[in-house]
């Protein structure tokens, strides 16, 4: 019987990096306070002891600069992992990710490739204010040439990170900063998880809840509450927003005929809109009601705790939406 331990999501990310760095000497990680400090979230603690400061490279506070360098290093034979401490700093690296990394392969007629991973965090309620709390993953989904990964469990985080590092394209990997201590079962032996394969986190028959990243636990919590009221909810995590496993989402929608999509990014032009549209196109004649979307409130994330909490979708909101759908 294969051994499975309980480890945290942070430990799972760390394990994936360690294993890939042992496996492939071209892999290195760079970013701010990642070496001795092990990142502000302490996810990479101890890596520098094993791999040294050249492969766990502390950088100046120059997100655009070291992301651009990662693009060049990736093109010339390395496999960099860039650590962007807060996803909010995506604004600073956008030219390097959107105009450089994402386009190099296409613009060169397929002759150069950019095998790199940009790690970043998302998620509010850490009382960090408007510039350290956003969930901006949808921005990257809009850009051809990028892949976008949002793990929601330790198991998924490890398997998807290993796949991201081995992928020959630029991959943007968002981790929910509030889930780093979430524990879950992770096999001791090696495994990877393919991109573009959604995971049914809970099977159900009455309503489908499609949830990403930080919202998967919210959806599972809502499903439990609904169960107490006799409503059977299916929870599906796409795990990668691009490539997107539309087939699994549509099949579930056809089965339950009612769908809620919940994501911590902004709803307006956000991930929920794309997913809802894909489901509507694929399962229109099987739906009993329009797909319901739940995202962050369309306001800058406020600091004051009751205000901040009000901006993030919660279990009650999902339960209410499900009950409304079921009439």
């Amino acid at each position, binding site marked *: 019987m294969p051994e499975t331990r309980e480890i945290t999501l942070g430990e799972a990310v760390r394990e994936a990096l360690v294993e890939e760095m042992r496996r492939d000497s071209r892999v290195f990680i760079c970013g701010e306070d990642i070496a001795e400090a092990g990142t502000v979230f302490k996810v990479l603690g101890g890596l520098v002891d094993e791999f040294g400061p050249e492969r766990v490279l502390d950088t100046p506070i120059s997100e655009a*600069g070291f992301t651009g360098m990662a693009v060049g290093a990736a093109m010339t034979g390395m496999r960099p992992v860039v650590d962007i401490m807060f996803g909010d700093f995506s604004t600073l690296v956008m030219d390097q990710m959107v105009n450089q990394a994402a386009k190099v392969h296409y*613009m060169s007629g397929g002759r150069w490739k950019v095998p790199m991973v940009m790690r970043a965090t998302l998620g509010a309620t850490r009382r960090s204010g408007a510039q350290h709390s956003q969930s901006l993953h949808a921005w990257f989904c809009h850009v051809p040439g990028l892949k976008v990964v949002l793990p929601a469990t330790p198991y998924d985080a490890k398997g998807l990170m290993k796949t991201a590092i081995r992928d020959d394209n630029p991959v943007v990997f968002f981790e929910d900063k509030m889930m780093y201590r979430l524990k879950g079962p992770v096999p001791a032996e090696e495994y990877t998880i393919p991109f573009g394969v959604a995971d049914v986190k809970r099977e159900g028959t009455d309503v489908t809840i499609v949830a990403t990243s930080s919202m998967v636990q919210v959806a599972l919590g809502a499903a439990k509450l609904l169960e107490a009221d006799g409503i059977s909810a299916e929870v599906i995590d796409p795990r990668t927003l691009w490539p997107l496993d539309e087939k699994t989402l549509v099949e579930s929608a056809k089965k339950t005929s009612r769908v809620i999509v919940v994501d911590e990014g902004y709803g307006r032009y956000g991930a929920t809109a794309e997913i809802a549209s894909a489901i509507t196109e694929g399962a229109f004649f099987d739906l009993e009601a329009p797909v319901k979307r739940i995202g962050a409130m369309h306001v800058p994330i406020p600091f004051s705790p009751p205000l901040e909490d009000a901006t993030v979708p919660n279990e009650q909101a999902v339960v209410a939406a499900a009950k409304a759908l079921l009439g």
Partner: protein
Amino acid sequence: MAIAVDRLQTAPEAEIDQWLRMYRRMLMIRLFEEQVNDLYTRALMPGLAHLYIGEEAVAVGVCEALRSDDYITSTHRGHGHCLAKGARLDRMFAELLGKEAGYCKGKGGSMHIADPDTGNLGANAIVGGSAGIATGAALTAKRMKTGRVAVCFFGDGAMGQGLLYEVMNMASLWKLPVIYVCENNLYGEYTSNVETLAGDMLTRAAGFAIRGESVDGQDVRKVHAAATQIVERVRAGAGPAFLVCNTYRFMGHHVGDVNREYYRSKQEEQLWKTERDPIKLLGDWLGAQNLTDRARLEQLRIEVKSEVEQAVQFALAAPYPGPDKVDQDVYA
């Protein structure tokens, strides 16, 4: 007392060959660009192009100092860099015309020519946008101990971009083998850099403890001499370098920029064209040194002109990519 000597008899043959090679390369870029302008004016080329005419000595002088496996990154005004690094005329023209036979299968165009075979990491249409890529290539060279150097070409306009200073800082901290080459052609698009550049360019690099120097960018021998020394030093592990080549864009910002008097005078342009043409300067010097004669230079011109004509005919006749190619190469 100085004794006049016949250089033809005393200069090593290899040295003469090198000067003639650089002359030929500059001429190739010039005639290529003149042909591009012609294609544009005859409405045979889609889009625009930014011509390198007048600046040939920079690309040729620097690239002549490089190994074929060294890296370059280029700019929107990049045809000269690509050709100087060894690109073929026919595939260059084909790319400019959006043809399948182009370096990027027609998907890149004038501002995005890239070619792994010649170490060309790509021209870049974001001003200063390739500074990170070049510096990252230097990081790879250092980590993998390949002995390669990376040259980042950019114009004086890029001196206004923050990315450049972020990567200069890291390149200096980590002693990366990267050479930042600023082609100071005095204008960023349609604006004199008198209006956009504060202080002194070399001092900016000095602030990062990067050794900088400036050179007459119209004199290919001076550019080459400076680049050779810098490349040797950088390859040996001395860390990054900064080279400012003072040059001039003989034509407009792009092929459609014809009426330019609102930002620079015709007299100024005329002065550069007649007094500071890099090809004429080298030709005159070679003649004065008795290293070659007019007939040989004229023969070179005839050869290059014929190569350019054959290449453009190839590109004009080449097929466009089929519509089925449009969604290929998005992902590796």
